[in-house]
Each structure stands twice: as C-alpha cells, then as structure tokens.
C-alpha cells in the first residue's frame, strides 16, 4: 500500500459475499481510479490479520458464517482501533448486525458482536416471523447527509434496534428496513455506515459511494465520464417503479 493509494479492505468475502455486496469494493475503487486517484482492493481471508486500510467493507451472508466474522473482527480490537484512527466502514445486512453489540443466530440464541455500533439485532416477534423482509426498498436518507433517495433490495429476517448515539441512515418509504416502528433503515455513527440494502448499495446509489470516498480523500472532482452514473439512474428508475413509486424526491 503506497501512501498515495486508497486501500479498500474487502472483509471475508468467502463468508460475507454471497449477496453481491463484494461489488461495493469494485464501485469504490473504480470511482477513485476514474478520477485519477490510485486505489487497491485488499481481500481479507478468514483468520488473516486485519490490514491497515482507509475503508473496510462487510457484506451480507448467512447465520453460520456470521459467528466466524464476529470472532475475527473482535480479535485484538483491530477494527475498533482503525475506526478510532479515522477509517471508514460500510457494513451491509449480516455485516451490519455483526458490528453491533449482539445479534440473533437463530433458535433464540444470541452472539456477541464487535460492539462498534450501539445496536442490537434480534428476531421479529414470533407472530411476525413469516414476514421476512424481502423486496425492493426505498429509503429517504437523513437530511443532514444531503443525499438523494436511496434504493436497494432487502433480504433479511432481523430486527435491529438502535441505542445511544447510533442514528438511522434514513427512513424507509418502501420496505421494512431495521424493522422497528419508527421505520428506521440502517445506522450511521461517525464514519461507520450500516444498511440492509443490497444491489450492491453503492452501485445503485453513487452519491452514497462518493460520500464515503469524500470522507477519505476530501472533495472529489467530477467523474470524467457520466456514462456510469447515467446507467445507475436508469436502474434506479426501474427500482422505484418496481417499488410502486415513479418520481419521488429524486
């Protein structure tokens, strides 16, 4: 890792990469390279020591792999130390749950999370457990972020409750999100962002990708070519239509 290159850690893709979320690393790296900023994606295997990077990415996955991830990330408090040193983290779905204080692993059992986020994830009440959150989701981001409407595909059975200083990333306009009564979706705490949105979320929402990159490199020049963002806009329009919306605060 040279000083001028932005290092993006893709954490445990074998364990947390089966919902397409590895694509978030591709999106971040390409959006830097196209602007003339060197970027490298560092794939971190289970049990490997956590490298020093500017950005850490966690994706979605199943219950069984989650416990391996929580164990590896908690070891030596490396991720917590990196965040205290200013690193940016994006965690999706199972990755979001792992970063909290605790998460449900099924059959009423709970596992200890990394504790980086002040959140807890349980299961919805028994009478609502058939309502697994699966489908297109549309999220209105919290106003202070100054982001356009976020779209994505959610697919989870968790109920995530925010505590203390953790703030929701936004409010669901369509979909389930965290599953709480306030219709919160995701979490943001400093430069740690969590969401249930797949897609991958950064491919569908380039403004969110640029927000994370801005935290690392400061003000970003525009992309030299708007093809890719035009392509994202087309997909977003299809998603909004699939979610039953046409033009909604775009």
């Amino acid at each position: 890792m040279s000083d001028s290159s932005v290092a993006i850690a893709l954490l445990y893709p074998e364990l947390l990469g089966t919902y397409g979320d590895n694509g978030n690393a591709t999106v971040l790296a390409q959006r830097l390279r196209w602007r003339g900023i060197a970027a490298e994606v560092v794939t971190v295997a289970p049990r490997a020591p956590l490298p020093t990077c500017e950005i850490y990415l966690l994706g979605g996955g199943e219950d069984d792999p989650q416990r391996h991830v929580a164990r590896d990330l908690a070891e030596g408090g490396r991720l917590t130390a990196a965040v205290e040193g200013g690193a940016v983290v994006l965690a999706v779905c199972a990755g979001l749950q792992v970063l909290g204080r605790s998460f449900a692993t099924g059959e009423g059992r709970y596992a200890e999370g990394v504790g980086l986020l002040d959140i807890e994830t349980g299961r919805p009440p028994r009478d609502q457990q058939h309502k697994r959150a699966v489908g297109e989701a549309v999220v209105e981001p919290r106003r202070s972020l100054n982001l356009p409407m976020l779209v994505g595909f959610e697919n989870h059975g968790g109920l995530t409750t925010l505590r203390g200083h953790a703030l929701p990333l936004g409010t669901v306009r369509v979909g389930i999100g965290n599953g709480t009564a306030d219709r919160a979706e995701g979490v943001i705490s400093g430069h740690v962002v969590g969401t249930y949105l797949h897609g991958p979320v950064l491919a569908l929402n380039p403004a969110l990708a640029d927000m994370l990159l801005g935290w690392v490199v400061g003000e970003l020049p525009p992309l030299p070519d708007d093809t890719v963002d035009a392509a994202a806009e087309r997909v977003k329009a299809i998603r909004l239509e699939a979610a039953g919306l046409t033009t909604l605060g775009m």
Partner: protein
Amino acid sequence: MGVRSSLAVLAGTAASQSSRLLRRGSGEVIGGRIALELQPGLLAELAADRVVACVSGTNGKTTTTRLLVAALATRGPVASNAGGANMPEGHVVALSGVPRDRPAVLEVDEVYLPQVVAAVAPRTIVLLNLSRDQLDRMAETRRIVAAWRAMLVGATERPVVIANADDPLVTWAAMPAGRVVWVGAGLAWRSDAAICPSCGGLLTFAAESWACEECPLRRPEPEVALRDGEIDVRGERLPVELALPGRANRGNAALATAAADVLGIAPADALAAMRAVTGVGGRYAVHRRPEATYRLFLAKNPAGWVEIFDMLAEADRPLVLAINARTADGRDTSWLWDVPFEKLRGRHVVVTGERGADLALRLAYAEVDHELVPGTDAALRTAKRRRDQHPAAGADDPDLDVVANYTAFQALRGTVAPVSGHQ
C-alpha cells in the same frame, strides 16, 4: 399392472396428447398429473423391476441425464424425461408404455429427490452439486442437503451413489450411503460452500482437496476423476472428447461415466457414446431466427455463469446477454456482482432483457464495451450488424453467442428451430 394403473396411464396419455394437439405445452406435466391423481402409487408401479438411475443437483441435471442416456442407449432404447419435466408427473410420463426390461434415466428436481427415490428404488443416484439458485435460497439449500442425507441413511448396497467429491455439501449428503463412488468432477463455484455442513467450521480449499478446520470432514479420495481433460477411472485414463463445450460438461461426463459403469457400460464405450450429444434442451444448440443464427447458453445462477465464461473463452463472435428478474429468475439482481464479468473485457456485448439496465451498470464498472438494446429481436439485429461489419472466419459458424438467464432463455428458444445439434 392393475386395471386402475392401466386406466391411469391411459387417461394421462390422452391428456398429454390433447395438450400437445391444443399446443398448450409438451404435455408431460398435465398427463402425468392426471395419472398420478388417479393412481398415487403409479410411479412406484411403473418403476418396479426396472433398472432406474436418478440424476439430481443444482446445475447440470439435464445435460448429465442426456449424457447417461447416450451411454445406456448403446444397449437399446432408454426411457427418460428428456423434456426436462423433472418432478413425479414427468417421471410417470417418461416411464408410461416403456417395457420393463428397458432402463430409465430420470432427471429429478433436488427437492423431490427423496420422494422419487423412495418410489422408484433406483439402482444408482447421481448427485452433481448444490448451490443457491437464487440469492435468498441458501436456507433451502441447507434443507436439501439434510433431506438427501436422511434419504441415504441406512441404504446398503443399493442404490450406488455417484457423488461429486469436490462439492462439500454433496459429500456430506452422500456419506451415509452404503456404497458411494466418489467422482472428482470439479466445482467452479465455492461461494456457497465456505462453511462445513457437518459442524459449521470453516472449510479450506486447495487445488484438488478441501477440508474442515474443526472436524474430520474432508474431500474423499475419488475413484473417478476429471484431470487435464482426461477421465481417470481407477488408474485408466480416458480422453474426454465431447461435442458439448466447457469444463463443467466434462465434469458432468465424468459423473455420467461412473454411473454408466455401475450399470454395466464400460467407461470407454460410455464416453464414446457421449460424443454424439450436441445439444440439450436448446442449450448449446445453434438456433436460427430471421435476425441471426446463434449458439444459445442457459445460465440460471452465479455458478452457471462462471461455467459459461469457460465455454465462451475461445469464441470471437458478438455476444448477447439477456437478463430478466421474474420470480423464476430471482427478483434480486445483486447476483450480477457475484459474477466476474471482467472476463469479458475485449469483447463487445449487446445487453438486453427486462433487467438489461442492471447488467449494463455492472458491465460499466467492469469496463466491458457494451450497449443496451431493449427487446430481444432488436438486440439480435444489433449484434448481427456488428458481426457483418467484422466478418470472422468460418461461414458455418453461428453469427452470435447468446447467454440468457432462465425466463429470458425460454423466450429465446421458444420460437426458434435448431439448425443443428438438436435431439
């Protein structure tokens, strides 16, 4: 066969024929359904005293079934559900009216396998691989593994299970069987096999092995293995020269060879017969439309896409990729990012299908030269124009390669007549 069963077969056959006459479908499903409603024990009765092989798994069922049929056909006619109707109603139709001394090869849906095995008491079962068909289906995959394993607990010499030793989920499911022929058939897609199916520990993979870090589960030593384009059958090395493309199909041939061996066909003879298989249910076959001629590939899940790149690798013709996201395809298109489309750099790709825009976004990030053309016919025309501007060698070659996911594939094969390679 009892009067009730005979009547059930007659009624089912009549329904199949009228369905075909009315052009309402191939007739397999409706005829079989009626027959099974009239006589629920019909499948067991039709299979009694018959040599039956069952073939199941996420990817390669239809092709492996076809390859095994080709091998067995060296000894005369074989019953099979060649149309791909792989649930019990399709099996009833495949066996109806075929003399008992004729063997049968049944392609079986993964979920239905235990039920079908209980009914037909197969001589052999071929277990190919298990992965998610769709993003939210991993829990289903785990249930299938458990059900397969339960099916084989207590099995003695029959059935002989032919199992892909490179797939940890298949291995775990097959282990309780009394007799297993382990086949090193390969596994290109390991993303659904990171965790030990036995203990939940981490699995580690090397070139020709895998093992759990926490328990004794590891890759069994195969009796039959695909290696360097040859199939090694207990030390005898046989060349694999298939008309079907790709490493995945050579792996399917290795599994079919092992099954044929159990059923008394010598591996060399089986492999020779498999060469005659050129297309399977429209897959790999050359299709003709007014717009263009094209070789059509089905890739219905990430594991399938990974295999397809290997099949396209040597071709230098325009490529059309068609993506839908209907229920049968999976509504979530995030999986497009699990597929290494970067491998298509240097080719020109025409993107189409109801969710072509999702793929266009993926290809933009992969820096693959592409254009989005809504409408299948228009996409074929666009790609053909490009082909005409850059004529390649081989006038007999199809104009294009077309890869489609499930419902897009159905649309592309529906109105085409294969010009070669059909069965």
